[in-house]
Every structure is written in C-alpha cells, then in structure tokens.
C-alpha cells in the first residue's frame, strides 16, 4: 500500500493536474490570534487552490500544550489528524519511533530540501536517521531584548548594547521612576526560562553551550560562567516590579510600550504587540539582538508540520501535495510575511523586512550565530526541571547562586 501511495503521489506530482482522488486534510495547529490567523490562511489558500480539489480542514486549538495533548490523544484513539503543528524538539520522538508519521523522504529528495532549507539546525528537526518526518515552515528567534527609547531618554541614558551595560544603567532608570526590567511569571515561569536560556548562551557562547547540553556536562553547568548567570539573574530581579508574579508576556510588553518599563527580554513575536500599538521601531522602541549587539545570535525555535499515517492512499497523496506546498517559495514568503517570522529557505526575497528583521536575516546566514533550540537537546522533563529551578531561584531570594548552580549542574549531569 505504501508503494501504491508513493506511486500515486509521484504520478500526481509528475502529471500535475491529472487528478488522483482529492482529499480533505484536517490540520491541528495553535495559530489562533489575529496575525497568526492571517498566516495560516495562506497555507489553507494554497491547498484549496492546488488544482486537485483538496480541502484544508482547519482544527485550531489554542495553546501548544493543549493542541499537542489533543493530537496525542487522537493518535491513541486511532483517529489522528492529517497533519499537525509542532515545535522542533523531542516532543514527537515517540511518534516517529511508534511509526505514526508519514515518511516524507522521497519528497525531500526530489525537492532538494537538504540544500534549500537553512540553517542546518532547522533540517535536523525533521531529518532523523536519514528520513524526513516533517516540514519546517518558519523560524522564530527567542534571542531578543526590546526596550523603550523614550524611557532611556528620560533617564538620560544611551540605548543599551548588551545586558551587562543594562544592569549597570538600571539604577538610573529606577531613579527616573521607570521599572528598569519588565518580566512576567505566568505559565510555569516560561518567560523567566526564556530569559535564562538567552543569558546562558550569551555567557557561554554558542559552542560551549551546545557542548554543555549535548555532552550533559555537569562541569560546564557548574562552572563560573553559570554562577555569574545566576548572579546576573538575581540582579535583574531587583530591578523588576512586584507585579511580575503571574503576568503574561503581552502585559509585560505593554509596560515597555507605555514607557512604564525600560527593557524586556522576549522572542521576536513581541514585535506583533508593538505593531498592534502602532509603533514602528524607528524612534519609539529598540531591539537588541542576542542580548549583545556585538555577538548577534538567532535561535531556530520555529514551527514544523508533522503528517500522520492514514490508511488511505488518496489522503496520503494529498498530504504529500500539502507538504510540497508548505515549503514552496511562494507560500513561504506569504506565510512568513503574515506571521512576522523568517522563512526556512534562504533563496526567497523578503522585500519589506524591518530593521529588527534585517539584523536577524543577516545573522541566520552565519552558522556560527545559530543557537539550536534548547529542547532539541533535552527532554521535556529535564526542560521542566530547569524551568522549576530557575523559577524558584527567581522567586525566592534565599536560594543562593552557589546552590542554584550546583542544582543546575546536577540536573544537566543526570538528564536523559
């Protein structure tokens, strides 16, 4: 049957409009906000107009964890969707091992995915043991700090160029009546975790960080750089406000937008909030790449689409048509323009990129400036252990940096 479906898919691709049976493909994803909705509509439009009569059946479920849990439960119930959004990582390892996913290797070979998709880290998200199991669709970077230019002006400070400078200048912001550092502690402290991971990379450098996670090196994890990360984190906490406890990231960004706070560390989706508030990034807000303008890095936290095996060759053929469309240059540009993220192919032109995006597009071409997403190295369980350690350290001033560093080394050393 697999042979037959491959054959069908191949004929469909070669013969173009000659119709195999059209199919309706249900896709589960968590793109539910206004901007995300416009982006996913580009995918849907492409499939609906593929000339084969295929239909996109939209199953949006807000919140990644809810959507992923639903996917897993439906797989268990024997009713998987045709395709589903995931983040690069190890969350779908068991799906690959369990033989639940459609093998896309023949498509990838034909479309030369290995050549057009950059950076390499984005490929390895889908390329496991020589087989392609998913399609990467966009790149988001977590490595950004956003600051209010008026706030720094009001305090008589130059714009920050790296985190260390910012910590030094923070007291002046405080004197000027501004919350120097904006952060929120909602959702198990994921914002704090994001900040922490950014700081780790800034302190260790990309190479040493990768070594720590891949070799599970308790030595690096317990080293002096990590201790200084925890110390800096404690310093930053003193410059935040006491309303941070369960604040979500949008409200945190809003503090920067309204010039009540100086700086926030957050992924590139924060740009959407600034844009929604009518800000352009020229004189109202600034972006600091990689927490250090002199050492720009981007991470490859993006989205991928998995395809689930169906016992129906017509559906499988349609799934492959969709996979091909997702990676095609035209759809890549349309989708990523709407989403505010970077395309996964280097050979497309993203005409109207803003100054922040320009910085990122430049960095993404240099493999040395690519940070692989943390959850590519460690399991979700280890990830959560780190998360808890950092959240607790941030909340509780009685935990010392020494203890936290030791605990971190312990978690890394024992990770699975």
């Amino acid at each position: 049957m697999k042979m037959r479906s491959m054959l069908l898919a191949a004929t469909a691709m070669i013969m173009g409009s000659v119709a195999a049976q059209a199919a309706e493909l249900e896709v589960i994803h968590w793109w539910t906000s206004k901007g995300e909705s416009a982006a996913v509509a580009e995918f849907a439009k492409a499939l609906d107009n593929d000339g084969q009569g295929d239909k996109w059946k939209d199953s949006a479920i807000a919140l990644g964890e809810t959507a992923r849990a639903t996917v897993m439960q439906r797989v268990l119930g024997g009713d998987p969707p045709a395709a589903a959004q995931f983040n690069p990582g190890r969350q779908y390892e068991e799906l690959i091992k369990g033989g639940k996913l459609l093998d896309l290797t023949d498509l990838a070979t034909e479309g030369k995915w290995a050549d057009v998709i950059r950076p390499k880290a984005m490929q390895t998200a889908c390329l496991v043991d020589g087989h392609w199991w998913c399609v990467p669709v966009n790149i988001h970077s977590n490595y950004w700090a956003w600051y209010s230019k008026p706030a720094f002006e009001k305090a008589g400070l130059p714009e920050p160029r790296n985190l260390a400078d910012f910590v030094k200048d923070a007291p002046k912001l405080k004197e000027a009546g501004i919350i120097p550092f904006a952060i929120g502690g909602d959702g198990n402290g994921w914002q704090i975790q994001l900040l922490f991971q950014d700081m780790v990379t800034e302190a260790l450098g990309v190479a040493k960080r990768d070594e720590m996670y891949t070799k599970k090196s308790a030595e690096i994890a317990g080293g002096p750089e990590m201790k200084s990360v925890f110390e800096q984190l404690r310093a930053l906490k003193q410059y935040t406000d006491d309303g941070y406890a369960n604040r979500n990231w949008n409200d945190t960004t809003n503090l920067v937008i309204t010039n009540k706070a100086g700086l926030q560390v957050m992924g590139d989706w924060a740009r959407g909030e600034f844009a929604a508030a009518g800000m352009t990034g020229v004189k109202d807000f600034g972006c600091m790449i990689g927490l250090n303008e002199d050492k720009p890095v981007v991470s490859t936290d993006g989205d991928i689409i998995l395809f689930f095996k169906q016992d129906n060759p017509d559906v499988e053929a349609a799934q492959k048509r969709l996979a091909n469309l997702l990676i095609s240059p035209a759809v890549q540009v349309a989708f990523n323009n709407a989403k505010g993220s970077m395309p996964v192919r280097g050979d497309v032109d993203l005409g109207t990129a803003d100054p922040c995006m320009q910085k990122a597009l430049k960095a993404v071409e240099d493999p040395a400036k690519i940070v692989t997403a943390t959850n590519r190295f460690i399991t979700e369980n280890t990830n959560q252990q780190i998360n808890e350690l950092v959240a607790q350290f941030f909340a509780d001033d009685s935990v010392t940096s020494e203890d936290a560093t030791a605990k971190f080394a312990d978690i890394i050393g024992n990770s699975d």
Partner: protein
Amino acid sequence: MSAADVAAPGATAAGPDVLAEPRGPKPRRISVGRIGLYAFLVMSAIFFLVPLYIMIVTSLKGMPEIRLGHLFNLPAEPTLQPWVDAAFRACTGRDCFGLSPGFINSVKITVPSVIISIVCASLNGYALTFWPYKGASFLFGVLVFGAFVPYQVVIYPLIIGLSTVGLFATLPGIIIVHTIFGMPILTLLFRNFYASLPVELFKAGRIDGAGFWRIFFHIMLPMSVPITVVAVILQVTGIWNDFLFGIVFAGRNNWPMTVQLNNIVNTTTGVREYNVNMAATILTAAVPLIVYFVSGRWFVRGIAAGAVKG
C-alpha cells in the same frame, strides 16, 4: 443580553425595599434584623460582582484604553465592537467567525447529556436508598471514589475503550463521557436527598403493591423537583463549559463552543485582545446564567411537604 447584565442593577434595587418586606418569618421585628440581612446579602453581592464589573467595563473599552491600565474606570469611549467581534468575527484559527459556529454543537451535546445523566443518577440514588441490593453500596463507594480522580488520569483508558467500540470522536461518545463523569456527584446528590425523605412514603407505596418503577415515577419523581434543579444547574454548567472532553471525544465535526472560546482567549505568542476575551467569556456563560435565573420558579418550599400529605 445575559442574565448577569440584568442581574447587576437588581442587586442595588433590593436595597430600598428592605422595609417594605411584609411576609418574613418574624414579621414583628422588621427593622434591625432585616436591615442586617439585606446588608449581608448586598455586601456579598458586591464581592461577587467586582470581577464581573471589571469584565463588563473592559469589554466596552478599546485596546488603547485598556493598555492604560485603569482597571475600574468606566470606558471613556464605550464601544460594542468587542461584543460583535466575540460573537461573529474574532479569529479562531483560519476562520474568523467568533463563537457562533460552535453554539449548535454545544446545544447538541449539552441537552442529551444533561437529561441522560440526571435520569441515570436519580435512578441510582433511588435504588441505593430504597432498594439496596448486595454490593450496591460498594459500587456507590467506587463512584464517590471516582469523583476524586483528575479527569486526565482516566482519559487514556476511556479513549482506548471508546475507540474499541467505535464510538471515539462521535456525538454518542461525548454524551457517554459526560454521563460517566456526571454520575458520581449526581448519584450522591440524589441518594442523600432520597435518604432524607420520610421512609413512610416508600412503605406506603409498597403496601399499595407498587413496584420499583411505579414508586419511582409516581412518588419519588414528583418530590425530586428542587434537587433536580440543583442537578440541572451542576450539569448544564459543567457540560456547557467543558473543553477537555469535548475537544477529544466529540470529534472535529461536533466541537463545542468552548473550543472557539479557548481559541479566542488563549494564545501562546499571539497578540491578546482583552476586550474581546471578556465579551466572549460573558457570552459563553449566558446559557448557564439563564438556567440559573429561570430555575428560581422551582426553588420553592413545600413541594416535598405537600407530597407527604398527598
């Protein structure tokens, strides 16, 4: 349009009427006690209404005004746009039709689930109280025990079970799931209610030669009105608001309205529109709120007492 909107002014309207109340159980001492009573109720009502006030005020503001952060201020430029968006235009994925697409599905799931679960539970309570057979109280213990299990813990066996019988991701499937998870609390509710009824009622029925079903339909059911109202309140609320089961067990074509609600109010990295979120939440709650308000006619004294004599 929701009952809560109607309810809000009513709370203060009750105040001036304090002295006009004529038929209290202690009509001679109108003054201090009655005033204290209404003071307590009005104070409690205020405590309950503060979050609703914030929600309504926020739902009538534009996003720029919300960003200013004046939580309790009345809207400077009131707008109904968020309500329209929440009902018909907010994006919930590729489609931007607001809450409206799931409404009919929610009704299709809620009505049969509420009826079936209450019928089952009232029979259980009746049988447990008046016809206990060997092992019945053990089964009841298991049910009560089951009430404490977080749903997610038993979701896997249930998925496997329902897909084996081919009911996974179907309308009957979700109705069965709601009946299952409503059963422990509802059975407890009815059992404790029947146990508090005078046993003479049952004995009189037996002497007249009535059996299990006749006593249930002719004696017990007419007396169960107040407790059934409570059961309806519990079930309508729980099932109407259910998201966890609906999204897994109902199947894509029967997704309830809460899926749209979740998609409107929740986002991982998207921009949040708080005014639309608030409007959507109140709109979704409208159905249970109407049930609460209307249920008042059956929340009256004396039905049980009347039946005893009759």
